[in-house]
Every structure is written in C-alpha cells, then in structure tokens.
C-alpha cells in the first residue's frame, strides 16, 4: 500500500519541470495567436452554428441586439458602443452570459451547448498597433 509516491513530499524536481513545461506551452500559445486578431478596426466576430457574422464595435456604434439560433434555442448578443456581451442564452450553465462585456481584442464568450463563439478582434481607434497582453486578461 505504501508506494513511493505516497511518501514523497510535493515539490520534487520532476514536479517543477512539469509545471515549467506547461507554462512554456502556455507562453508559446500566447505568442502563436494569429496576428490577424490585431488588425483592422475593433469588431465582434460571432460564429454561430456554422456561420460567421461580424459587427463593428466603434464608439459611435448604435446599440442593437442580435439573436442567433442554435441547437438549444436563441442566444441574444447585446452590442453597445465599443463593447458587446451575451445578454441571454438558453443554456444551463450560463458561462457565456457570465463572461460579461467583451471589449478588447482576444476577449471571448462561448456557449458550447448552443454552438456559439463570440470573439473580439482588431484595434480600437487611435490605439497603437502592438501586442496587447491585457487582451487576454478577461
């Protein structure tokens, strides 16, 4: 019953190497993101049930609500000046709605049961083109 792993205190060299390897993979995937995500004006791309829709997220954008039909029902996406969010969803876990406002490139709200992904890409007006690490801080 008393295997070596049960006697060994956490924090071995192998543990540290494993953690570092995973963190290297995370850092690599951060910089391997497609560069196109930073190009063009700030906009929301919604992939819903196999089709793609784009909406501009300009500061003078008129508020509107879009609805997307999915396998579970209607997902309502709320568009406001410079930001967007999932307002209502028929799914059980509500992870998409709880993701809140999406306003920076890289912000994502997804509803797996209703087959919908909403992602912000592009740059806000008057914003220099650079890698914006805070874009993934949501």
């Amino acid at each position: 019953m008393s295997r070596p792993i049960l006697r060994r205190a956490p924090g071995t060299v192998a543990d540290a190497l494993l953690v570092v390897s995973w963190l290297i993979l995370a850092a690599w995937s951060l910089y391997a993101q497609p560069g196109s995500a930073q190009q063009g004006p700030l906009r929301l791309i919604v992939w819903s049930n196999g089709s793609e829709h784009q909406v501009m997220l300009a500061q003078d954008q008129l508020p509107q609500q879009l609805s997307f039909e999915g396998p579970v029902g209607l997902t309502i996406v709320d568009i406001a000046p410079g930001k967007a969010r999932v307002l209502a969803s028929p799914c059980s876990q509500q992870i998409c709605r709880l993701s809140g406002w999406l306003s920076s490139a890289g912000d994502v709200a997804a509803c797996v049961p209703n087959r919908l992904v909403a992602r912000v890409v592009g740059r806000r007006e008057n914003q220099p083109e650079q890698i914006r690490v805070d874009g993934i801080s949501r």
Partner: protein
Amino acid sequence: MTTRQLTRLALLAALALILFVLEVAIPRPLPWMKIGLGNTAVLIALVMFDWRSAAAVMLIKVLVGSLVTGAFGGPSFVLAAGSSVASLVLMATSLSLGERWLSILGLSVVGACVHQVSQLCIASVYLGHDGLWGLLPLFIVSGVIAGSMTGLVAYFACRQLQGVQA
C-alpha cells in the same frame, strides 16, 4: 479487493460526487474556471489503489454528478466525461512511467492541464470552429494553479488515510 478497501473506495466515490456537485456553488474568478475538487478523490484512488479503482470513482463522479446537475447526455456531459477520461489516462501513464520522480502534486498538475486542453479540443470539435483556442494560455495557467491546489489536498488526505490504515 478486501472489504476494507471496497468500503474506502465507496467512500472516495461518494466524496468525489459530493465535491463535484458542491463545486457548482463556489464562486469562480472566471465563469469557466473550476478547481476540480472532485478530482482529489480520483487522485487518491489512483495512488492508494490502482487505475481501475480511480476509473470507477471517476465514472461515478461524472455519470451520477451529471444526472444530479441535469447535464447528462448534453454537450456539457460529453465535455466533462471526455476530459475526465483523458485526464485519468495521462495521470495513470505518468504514474507508471514517473513514479520514481513525481509527487502527487506533479501528477495532479498533469491531470488538471490535460483536462483543460482536452476540454478545448472537444469543445472545438463540437463547435466546428477554432475560435476558443485563444483561451489556451489561460486554461493552462488555471490548470497549473488548480492542479497544485487539488494535489496538495490529495497529498495531505493520503497522509491521514495512511495513518488510519496503520
């Protein structure tokens, strides 16, 4: 398997199920981020018994847990079941290959990170789109943090359980 072992395994399965269901009520820093407390019991079963016992605990956790939370049969169930199986397979493989070097914490980090990555894989296949892969760095970092937490809990639980055993 002795009656004592069977009883202990049944208690672990009950613990995994309770933690799986209770975790829904714990506030999350991000809506899709979970600590994976139920995995603590699977981890304990893996290191104190064997992979078959861990698989039994994991199956009970996922099957009964999704029946209780109402997710059974839906995409959320496929996500939870698929990533739990992938996580256990990799943890069992890491244990058999790296038992000389790894601690329970390292094993737990492997399980948590594999769980996260396989969730992204399954979700991307179901969605038919790779729009979620931008979340990979956050998924891995949260996996490392959550895996370390559950690994530490499992380590201290195993120490106590061994004391009871003696």
